[in-house]
């Protein structure tokens, strides 16, 4: 466990049954205050330790720890050591939660509220919902959040990191392509590119 995450974890069970929840709204330049306000509101009632990465959202939470950004390596530490992650339908967060077997509640950003340029996050959420992944939960209205948090943490099981078959296949395909390129090229790009034109020497 990283030092950062250890430091923010509640020491002992001072809040009773306290879980660690990490909230992130990604690197997108538009704000996602709808989620952050709701989490802040819920945080005043729940005993859990909640940390929010606000990103470019303007709202400042009153009841939780928060910051705008930490480097991705630190964010990974937060995710790994959380009992639950809540986020927009961001690919980075989904990948990391799957990799470390952390339950994830997804609340997609919407175009109509000025939270993203398109509604593609709805498509991601719906595609994931159809696939019925374990440990990934979708909500589409902020009012569903509190109930969902309680539900997910109640039957929280030991996280099960699953083998990522898609990742393995993609790595294999890319490797094969690189090896093939290495073999059927008689020249290196240095011979064919700028050098030939006498530029960039």
């Amino acid at each position, binding site marked *: 466990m990283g030092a950062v995450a250890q430091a923010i974890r509640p020491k002992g069970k001072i809040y009773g049954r306290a879980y660690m929840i990490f909230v992130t709204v*990604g690197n997108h330049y538009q704000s996602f205050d709808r989620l952050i306000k709701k989490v802040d509101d819920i945080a005043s009632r729940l005993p859990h330790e909640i940390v929010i990465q606000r990103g470019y959202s303007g709202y400042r939470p009153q009841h939780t720890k928060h910051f705008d950004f930490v*480097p*991705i390596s630190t964010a990974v530490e937060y995710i790994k050591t959380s009992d639950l992650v809540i986020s927009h339908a961001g*690919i980075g967060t989904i990948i990391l939660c799957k990799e470390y077997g952390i339950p994830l509640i997804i609340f997609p950003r919407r175009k109509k509220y000025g939270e993203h340029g398109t509604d593609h996050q709805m*498509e991601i959420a719906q595609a994931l919902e159809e696939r019925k992944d374990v440990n990934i939960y979708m909500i589409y209205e902020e009012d569903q959040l509190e109930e969902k948090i309680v539900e997910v943490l109640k039957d929280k099981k030991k996280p099960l990191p699953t083998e990522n078959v898609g990742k393995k296949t993609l790595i294999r395909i*890319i490797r094969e392509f690189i090896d093939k390129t290495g073999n059927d090229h008689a020249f290196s*790009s240095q011979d064919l590119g700028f050098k030939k034109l006498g530029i960039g020497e």
Partner: protein
Amino acid sequence: MKRNRKIGLICSPGGHFTEILQLLEAFEGHPSFLITYKEKATWDRENTYYMRNLARSPIALIVGVLKILLIFLKERPDILFSTGSEIAIPSFYFGKFLFRTKLIYLECSAQVYQPSMTGRCVYPITDLFLVQWEPLLKRYGPKAKYMGGLI
């Protein structure tokens, strides 16, 4: 005989960046460098070039595009790999036409049904074009391949 190929990794921060980190194993054994935007969430990593977000202003675009050219002149990549976003467009066109690099593009898993603008721009010149959701195949030409996704 297998030869070392210089690999250029190109992506913007966020999910695109996380996707590249997931796939680093594919490039092991080859020298590589990475070009991304300098933003607070970016990881400090060796062999990495940072620039301002190209989409932020016309000046950032011009400076950034020139910077990509200079980086390529220095690094001389043989293969470029990108997961998007728009930073891949100037990189791939420079790579293809000035450096004769081979191009691999992985459409970000955020694109389920709709192709991305970047994907559409680089599709015609890309050598290995991968998408991460099957429904997306019919929106691209026969060159696109679906081999599973990262999420």
